[in-house]
């Protein structure tokens, strides 16, 4: 077996939970950027407003010789700082502001926003100058406080998510399990089946998504059942049909054992041998039929039907001559045909063999191959007794043999001929031979393209 793919249940679970987490993270990132932007705008405007106030205030208070340190009014005050410079001199600062130029000496930073590093801390600094007098104001705020606000916002958003995740995973797992229940039920039903049980799978409440699978499975079961049925019938038929030849062999052998008279003993022994020949032929025919019925894909090649039929007739001719039968073959031209050569050979041999076998000694058998409107045709005629309509209708039934035929036959030759013809799309018709008076069988193949 190949490496097994992860279970459907796990894949669904991982997918659902992964997607939820990804959406949450995206939401968090969006919130982060959005809030930070808004926060920056708000706080920057506060810095600018504070600086403007300081500038306005300095215009009135300049020159007063009071301390430059402004009182701290709130416990958050250390996070904000300011400096007011007048004509190069620090005139006012918050308690936590350095006494040095906040923006750093000679940096040239005198107005606008800038992020600075002061004593290892990040500050957001707004600088502005008085419009009329030499007043330079710096208002700074620790960046860290902004991050704190952002984190607080995100925390309140992420915490419920984090806590909800296991709950979500649990609910999703339950949902997936529940959703996959029909699948599990079906696999249980399949596992509990008797291997020989081939009736269709029927489950109550099969979801629409599973119907194609169930239908496909049932169709497969149907085909297997039909195949097994045909096998079973074949085995039963074979066993049944072999009983009579075997009974004959056994009986004749026993007669020979118990016979004192030399001639009668010889007769019984010859009959035993004939029985063996017949059983052999029956077994061969059964195997051929089984192979044709097994439906192995025919290996089609380009064949000359005339040449193949000629070879077959040549092979059977000695047996026909033994019985003083006249076996003729007629074919004017090569008749190309695309078919499985082995099967085609079996078909031709069975037809010619039937004609000679069931015709009396001294009979005439004529085999003709021709082509009519692009259709290859094989005609086998004989001068034998022919068949009446009732018997003709039953030809091809397994093991059907025409009454009064003394010749040993299996009754399978016709089944074989018809099966092979079917696999090749050929049609078999029977009738009375106009020329010879006996049976006339013709096989017509579809036109070759």
């Amino acid at each position: 077996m190949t490496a097994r793919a992860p279970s459907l249940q796990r894949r669904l679970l991982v997918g659902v939970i992964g997607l939820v987490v990804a959406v949450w993270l995206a939401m968090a990132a969006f919130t982060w950027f959005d809030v930070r932007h808004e926060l920056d705008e708000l706080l920057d405007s506060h810095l600018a407003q504070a600086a403007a106030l300081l500038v306005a205030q300095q215009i009135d208070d300049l020159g007063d010789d009071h301390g430059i340190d402004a009182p701290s009014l709130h416990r958050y005050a250390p996070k904000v700082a300011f400096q007011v410079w007048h004509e190069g001199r620090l005139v006012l600062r918050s308690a936590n502001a350095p006494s040095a130029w906040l923006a750093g000496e000679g940096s040239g930073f005198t107005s606008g926003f800038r992020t600075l590093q002061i004593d290892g801390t990040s500050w957001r600094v707004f600088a502005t100058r008085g419009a009329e007098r030499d007043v330079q104001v710096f208002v700074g705020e620790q960046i860290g406080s902004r991050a704190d606000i952002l984190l607080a916002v995100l925390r309140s958003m992420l915490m419920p998510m984090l806590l909800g995740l296991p709950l979500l995973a649990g609910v999703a797992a339950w949902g997936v399990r529940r959703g996959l229940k029909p699948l599990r039920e079906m696999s249980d039903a399949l596992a509990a089946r008797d291997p020989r049980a081939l009736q269709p799978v029927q489950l109550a409440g099969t979801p629409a998504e599973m119907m194609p699978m169930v239908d496909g499975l049932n169709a497969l079961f149907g085909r297997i059942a039909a195949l097994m049925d045909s096998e079973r019938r074949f085995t039963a038929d074979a066993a049944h049909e072999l009983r009579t030849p075997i009974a004959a062999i056994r009986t004749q052998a026993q007669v020979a054992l118990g016979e004192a008279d030399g001639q009668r003993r010889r007769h019984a022994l010859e009959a035993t041998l004939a029985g063996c020949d017949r059983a052999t032929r029956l077994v061969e025919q059964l195997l051929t039929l089984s192979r044709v019925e097994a439906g192995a894909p025919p290996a089609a090649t380009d064949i000359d039907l005339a040449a193949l039929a000629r070879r077959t007739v040549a092979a059977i001719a000695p047996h026909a001559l033994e019985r003083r039968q006249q076996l003729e073959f007629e074919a004017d031209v090569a008749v190309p045909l695309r078919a499985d050569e082995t099967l085609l050979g079996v078909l031709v041999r069975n037809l010619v063999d039937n004609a000679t076998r069931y015709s009396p000694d001294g009979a005439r058998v004529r085999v003709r191959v021709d082509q009519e409107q692009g259709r290859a045709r094989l005609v086998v005629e004989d001068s034998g007794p022919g068949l009446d309509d009732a018997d003709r209708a039953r030809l091809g039934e397994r093991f059907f043999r025409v009454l009064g035929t003394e010749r040993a036959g299996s009754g399978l030759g016709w089944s074989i001929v018809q099966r092979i013809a079917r696999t090749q799309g050929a049609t078999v018709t029977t009738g009375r031979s106009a020329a010879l008076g006996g049976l006339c069988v013709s096989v017509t193949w579809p036109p070759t393209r």
Partner: protein
Amino acid sequence: MRILLAEDDPLLGDGLQAGLRQLGFQVDWVRDGDAAAREMRAQPYAAAVLDLGLPRRDGMDVLADARRDGLKTPVLVLTARDAVPDRIRGLDVGADDYVVKPVDLHELAARLRALVRRAHGQPQDKLRCGTIVLDPAARGVECGGEPVTLSTREFDLLHALMLNAGRVLSREQLEQHLYSWGREVESNAIEVHIHHLRRKLGAEVIQTVRGVGYLLARDMPAA
């Protein structure tokens, strides 16, 4: 014992006919259902061996018809149909025995003897009449404890008379019991065999009913 064999297979029919003849049966062989039905009615066969898969008319059909017509000839069905439902149907329709091919000739003969015995209400394998004991299987006869040597015809004649002990059998009936088709029967053959039997077994054993036939008295079975 004359029996009818209905079997369409030439090799098997030929073998059964020859084999059963070896074992002392007179065998008439027919090859299809119509002939079987006809011959069963035409002759008083001791038993019939019937194949089921017969041409023209199925053996089962032949058997059912014969029973419907009140024909009592014991019938042994010899067939390739071995399924239990087939066996049940065969026996129900009126077969006295059902044997699946292939069968041992000796077993077939023994079954036929058993059928004939039962048909004559004879529970034992040996027939007894006074001091005469006839063993159909061994084809042996004892008279007063002493074995008696009989020819085939003499044995068959005695067998027929013993099976029908207490009933008068005409010469024609005896001939039908003794000879299968195609055997030329001389007009006084039965008289000659009766004469020989009387000489070997005692004159009083077989009684002549003048103008009717012969009779073996059914006395008390000797112990």
